[in-house]
Structures are given as structure tokens and as C-alpha cells.
């Protein structure tokens, strides 16, 4: 007789604390990383000078500026972007019951990119216009995909993926037109650089919008994580277990598209995170979303912080973080595929 554990709840209860410590270490590490040297003692001095009654010595002023207005918002944004993209990826994979799905499947990123390119080409150089256009077109793209899927309204899951492909190619074509007609010395490079995601432009103002949205989305996904298990069984099963899969799917798609659109609008396209982080989390703790969603959140933040730290410190001139994530993401994904062979899922 094989002994069976009473209920196989948490597979590895130590994973979460370990990841939390790793995240904290990386966060402080990436506050220090970069061309402009700031030491730990300087950070302590700067932070304590913010408290009432303490003053900062004159020679730390430039350190303070870099730390408070560039590094800190950037690191917080890296955490937000990493968690937002990876959790959206996990939710999309559960909803579409497909391991190859990433949050761009419904055309969010393509829409955002087109919007941004349009914003760059339009007269006036307000950066807010570019962001607003990117965000708006991202949501338009998703609504188009969902709308087309609703019109067809059979086999909802597969049709939605196909509708996503339609919208994605459409916006890519539009983007190509814009690139073709843009000024090759000025506008074309900025479009290309915009598409390579980067966190260099991040300011506190971006965080005031992104952070609350990301946190609300994360909270919602955390609360509904057991329901994701049920949705991944398919519509008939979910319905007979007392859920309305259509309403849930629409809500989850809208919330995660909102998060992704906001991310792409502020930082450009950062590939692979939404695809590989959920796979990593599943490899670590199994596919049950109760355990897997919190791990995805932590891993996403860790991966993004590490990638952004690398992007800042590898070469003298900073490289876009999107390149780092793509470069590391692809081989990691191949390794995960190899590791998970024979799970009956791949």
C-alpha cells in the first residue's frame, strides 16, 4: 500500500519566502547598479534626509536626484511591468487553455505599437500623446478581437485566438504603412527604438497610473485564482460547476489587456516575459493556479529587475531591456520545454 499524503496542498512551502528574499536583494542591487555610482551608505543618507529633522550634505545632491527621480521609479516600474506581464500571461494561458499563448495574442501589443507610431508621426512632440495613443489603440485592438469573436460566436476559445491573429496582422500592416511613410532620419528611428521596450523613460508620473492598475489587477487575479483552474477545464465543465465562463473570460481579458496596454504604452514591447514566466512557475510548483499565481508574480518581478539591471550595466551605453528579455527568454523557454516533456501538456 502506497502512503498517500492527506491532501497534497502546497508542494514547496519554502519557494515563496526564498523568492521574496531574492526579490528584495535584487531590488536593492538594481538601485545600486548603473553608470552613476551610488553606494549603500549614500542611499541610507538620502533616505534618512527625507525624514523630518535630517538634512543632506551638499555633495550628495546629484546622487539624490538620480536615486529619487531616476533609479527608484525605474526599479518600481520594473517590478510592475514584470508582474503585470507575467500574470497576464498566466491568465491568458489558463483562459485559452494553451501554453503558447502570451498576452499579445489578442493584438494588444500590436495595437499599442501602431498607436505609438501614429503618435510619433503626428505633428507635435508631446510624449503623453504617444502614450495615450498607444494605450487607446491597444484597447481598440483587443475590443476588435473580442468583437469579431462574438460575431462568430461558435467555439469561443479557438475563434478568439483566430480573431486575435486577424487583428494582429491588420495592425502590423498598418504599422508597416506608417514606417514606410515616416521620415527615415528622425521618425523611423524613434518608432524602431520605441518598439524595443525600455524602461529609460519611466518617471513617477507613469507610476501613478501604472502602479494602482497593476496592483488592482494582481489583487483580482489572486482572488480568482482557483476559478482559473475551473475555467481551464473548458466551458461545458465550467458551466456545470456553476460558473459563467463567458462573463469571466471577458472580464479577465479586459483587465489583463488594460494592464498590458498600460505597460506597452509606457515601456514599449517587452517580449517573452508573459510567455516564459508562467511556464517557469508551473515547473516550480505545478499547474494549480492557487500556488502558481503568487509564484508567477514574484518570478516576473525578479526576472524583469534582473533584465533591467543587466540592460543598464552590461555596456557603457544602455541597451533596451526588450533585447535582453528576448535574448534570455528564448533559450530559457527551450530549456523549460525540455524539462516539462512528458507532462502530457506539451
Amino acid at each position, binding site marked *: 500500500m502506497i502512503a498517500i499524503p492527506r491532501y497534497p496542498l502546497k508542494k514547496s512551502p519554502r519557494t515563496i519566502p526564498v523568492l521574496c528574499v531574492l526579490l528584495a536583494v535584487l531590488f536593492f542591487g538594481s538601485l545600486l547598479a548603473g553608470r552613476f555610482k551610488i553606494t549603500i551608505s549614500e542611499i541610507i543618507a538620502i533616505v534618512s534626509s527625507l525624514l523630518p529633522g535630517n538634512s543632506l550634505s551638499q555633495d550628495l545632491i546629484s546622487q539624490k536626484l538620480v536615486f529619487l527621480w531616476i533609479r527608484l521609479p525605474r526599479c518600481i516600474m520594473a517590478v510592475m511591468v514584470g508582474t503585470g506581464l507575467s500574470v497576464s500571461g498566466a491568465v491568458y494561458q489558463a483562459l485559452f*487553455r494553451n501554453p503558447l499563448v502570451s498576452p499579445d495574442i489578442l493584438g494588444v501589443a500590436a495595437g499599442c505599437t501602431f498607436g505609438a507610431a501614429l503618435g510619433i508621426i503626428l505633428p507635435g512632440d508631446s510624449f503623453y500623446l504617444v502614450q495615450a495613443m498607444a494605450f487607446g489603440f491597444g484597447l481598440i485592438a483587443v475590443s476588435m478581437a473580442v468583437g469579431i469573436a462574438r460575431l462568430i460566436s461558435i467555439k469561443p476559445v479557438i475563434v478568439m485566438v483566430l480573431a486575435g491573429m486577424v487583428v494582429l496582422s491588420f495592425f502590423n500592416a498598418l504599422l508597416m504603412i506608417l514606417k514606410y511613410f515616416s521620415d527615415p532620419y528622425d521618425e523611423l528611428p524613434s518608432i524602431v527604438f520605441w518598439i524595443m521596450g525600455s524602461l529609460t523613460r519611466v518617471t513617477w508620473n507613469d507610476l501613478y497610473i501604472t502602479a494602482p492598475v497593476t496592483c488592482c489587477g494582481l489583487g483580482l487575479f489572486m*482572488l480568482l485564482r482557483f476559478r482559473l483552474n475551473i475555467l481551464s*477545464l473548458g466551458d461545458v465543465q465550467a458551466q*456545470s460547476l456553476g460558473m459563467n465562463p463567458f462573463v469571466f473570460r471577458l472580464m479577465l481579458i479586459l483587465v489583463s489587456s488594460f494592464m498590458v496596454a498600460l505597460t506597452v504604452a509606457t515601456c514599449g514591447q517587452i517580449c517573452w516575459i508573459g510567455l516564459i514566466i508562467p511556464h517557469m512557475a508551473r515547473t516550480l510548483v505545478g499547474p494549480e493556479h*492557487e500556488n502558481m499565481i503568487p509564484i508567477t508574480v514574484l518570478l516576473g518581478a525578479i526576472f524583469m529587475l534582473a533584465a533591467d539591471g543587466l540592460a543598464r550595466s552590461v555596456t557603457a551605453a544602455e541597451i533596451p531591456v526588450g533585447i535582453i528579455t528576448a535574448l534570455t527568454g528564448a533559450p530559457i523557454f527551450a530549456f523549460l520545454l525540455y524539462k516539462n516533456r512528458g507532462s502530457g501538456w506539451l
Partner: protein
Amino acid sequence: MAVKLECRCVTFRYGKTDILHDISFSVEPGSFCAVLGRNGSGKTTLLHCLNGIHKPHQGEIRINGNTIVGMTRNQIARHISLVPQEHLEIFPFKVIDVVVMGRAPFIGMTRTPSPNDYDLAMEALKTLNAQRLATCNFNRISGGERQIAMLACALVQTSDIMLLDEPTNHLDFNNQYHLLSKIKQLCQARKTSVIASMHDPNMAILFADTIVMVKAGKIIARGPAPEVMTKPNIDALYETDTTPVKISKTQHFFLPGEIING
């Protein structure tokens, strides 16, 4: 809990075609009702109407005399469970994690299953002599074991009314009998009303108490199994010529005549 299921004058259509037309029958607590019919006769649609996945255009479904129109999906799910015909490929969940999903209608929308829910799931697996499956990967067990796991999931959900869509599909010869006798035992021990769509009329003769014969969305015969399972009815249902073969004093199996007389 003994719960009676009634289906009153149900008509359901996709577009303009009637899939089900004026279907009425009822299932008493503790009885096993087999729905027989050819491919595409509307068996699955009927089961989906019974638990409210499809809304009938006319007629209604009643549980213990109360109509399910106006009940929430969750309220229905607490009384009616369904084992679907096809099990889609899913994440490599452990069997116990699939079974515990049967507790979904009883867990708050934003909650995760408690240790107690896992105990109930384990108990359901024990009832089906399948506790050894608990920690197996759901995608890596055999079709028969998967069927058992889904049955356990339905059992955790509710044993008031269970709808089984071709429960013996994909099962080997021995497992078919094993599974159906298990279902029959549950049905009697827990006063469960079982409605199962089936392909093999001989299986229905062995296990079912009542029969509903559906042909092109209409009922052509219904009632206690011994009365309904006659040569004329079966011939009409399957549009073939069968020969009764005596298997005991009171029971006959039906096999296609041309095969036997060769």
C-alpha cells in the same frame, strides 16, 4: 438527499432547426435512467438542457418541483452534476486537484479549497476505489481512469442528480461493466437520480431502471426498462432489424439480425 428531476415539454433549437421537440420525462430519486438514441439524435443537447447549460425555448426543467429558470448557475450546480463526454487536454493537474474542483459551487467565488474540501475529494476517490490515482498526473492516466476521476469530481459536487454523457465511451470491455455497476450502486445507496446517455442498448438493459428513447429530437418510447426494451422499439430507434438473444429467464440482448444469421 433525494431529489426528483422533471423535464416538461422541452423544445430546444439551434437557429431554426428543432434539436429537441416536446421532450417530457421524469426521473425518481435512486433510479438510473438511460437515454438511448443514434448519433446526432440530441442526447447531449438534452443533458445540457437538463442542467441549464442550454435554455429550452419551450418547456421547463424542475428539480423537486421547482423550476430551474431563475436559479443561478451555482444553485443548479449544487444539485446537478455532469460528466461530459469528452475530456479536453488540460494542464498537467494532479487527479486530486481535478476532483476537488467539484467543490467549486460550495466555495466562495474568491476562495480556494480548504483541507476539508480535499478530504471530501479524497473520500469520493475512495468510494470509487481510486485513491491510488490521487497524486497521478491527470493527462498521464488511462481513459478509464480519467472517466473515474471525472466521476469522482461529479460525486464531490453533488450526488443528488448526476448527468453522464456516454460514461462508457473509450472504456475497455471490463471497465464498462465495472463503471456502470459502480454507478448503479451509488445510485441505490445515495438515492441519486442518474441520467446517462448510452450507445449500447444491451448495457441499458443490464443497468437502467427506466429508458428514454430519443429519435431526431423526439421521444419515441419511455418507461421502465423491461417494458420499453422490446424488438419493435429498438428496431424503430436504430432503424435496423435486431434479433433478441435470451440471456436469462427474463432478459434478452438485442443484436443486429444480419450479423447473427449471417
